[in-house]
């Protein structure tokens, strides 16, 4: 169990395996569900499923697994499915989680691609999309706020500062993301190292 007051509890205390290992079919279905609901990116849905509904990970564990997925190159949520799946079920787990996440959207988007090639007129679709996009942005902001909560109550005080600097670098200064990432990560890691 993690102590909510601890900033970054060693998310898994010694010899802790996940509380229970869900069967692969359950992992697959969970990721299918994440993927079919995941309008505007799958992150909010993945967190909702894994932390709030299934309780397969604590909020801190989720943040750490997601940070690892983001640190790896490539699509974050796809990486996350592999990280999560491998942790819970090795290679089959990773494959099953990834297939669950990618399968349904692949089928749906291919059908949309065929329709688009046929008709190519998205006037109505565009209007609907505009409303969905505004709501999707709001949803992502809410998730960021939820993920940030443990950070700002932590005793490790430089964490919020680092998060804010990363935000400013990419969102406000519009510097290339890899540069911001490569510049801030060593500083942040060093601070974490000396803090412990």
């Amino acid at each position, binding site marked *: 169990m993690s102590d909510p007051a601890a900033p970054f509890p060693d998310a898994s205390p010694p010899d802790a395996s996940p509380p229970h290992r869900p069967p692969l079919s359950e992992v697959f279905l969970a990721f299918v569900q994440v993927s079919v609901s995941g309008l505007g990116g799958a992150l909010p849905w993945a967190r909702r499923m894994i932390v709030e509904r299934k309780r397969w990970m604590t909020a801190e564990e989720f943040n750490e697994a997601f940070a*690892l997925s983001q640190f790896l190159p490539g699509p974050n949520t*796809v990486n996350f499915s592999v*990280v999560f799946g491998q942790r819970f079920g090795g290679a089959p787990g990773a494959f099953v989680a990834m297939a669950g996440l990618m399968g349904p959207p692949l089928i749906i988007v291919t059908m949309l691609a065929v329709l688009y090639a046929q008709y190519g007129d998205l006037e109505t679709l565009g209007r609907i999309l505009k409303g969905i996009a505004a709501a999707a*942005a709001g949803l992502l902001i809410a*998730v960021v706020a939820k993920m940030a909560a443990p950070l700002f109550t932590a005793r490790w005080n430089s964490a919020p500062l680092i998060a804010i600097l990363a935000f400013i670098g990419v969102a406000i200064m519009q510097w290339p993301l890899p540069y911001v990432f490569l510049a801030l990560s060593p500083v942040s890691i060093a601070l974490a190292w000396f803090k412990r």
Partner: protein
Amino acid sequence: MNHDSPLLTLFGYFAMLSLFAVGGANAAIPEMHRVAVEVMGWMTDRQFADMFAISQLSPGPNVIIVTLIGYHVAGFTGAAVATAAMIGPTCMMAFFVTRFWDRFKHARWRIAVQAGLVPVSLGLIGASAFVLARAADNTVMAGVLTAATVVVAFFSRINPLWLFAAGGVLGLTGWL
């Protein structure tokens, strides 16, 4: 090797891009646009924008835009090849890094790296949220809708699909 083969070009390009795309699919969008529209001339600006819209509309990870680009360039095979190239190498990498990572669960360096990456990662997601909100909220009403969604999603556990449905209806009926 035949360099004129569109399948080969698709595969090589997306496999390479996937390994450089730190920060995910949304971070790679400007680079995809540059190549698909300006360098390769696969599609027009407008077509690219439509594909981005469709990829947002369809569920699942945003990376799905590569499937659309692949289909546009070379049909079903193109879609499969582009998608496999974009997710294959990074999935392998994620798999092996995680195994390596978990072996050092209690190493001090690993704990520091992990603790150090969390705030950076969070700041970057925050930046994506900001950029998405700025792109979506070009009217006052859209901004209000975004703000309302933040409040509802933060304080309740209502299924967010309802919020999307509300947004879609407001958009369709011309409120935004």
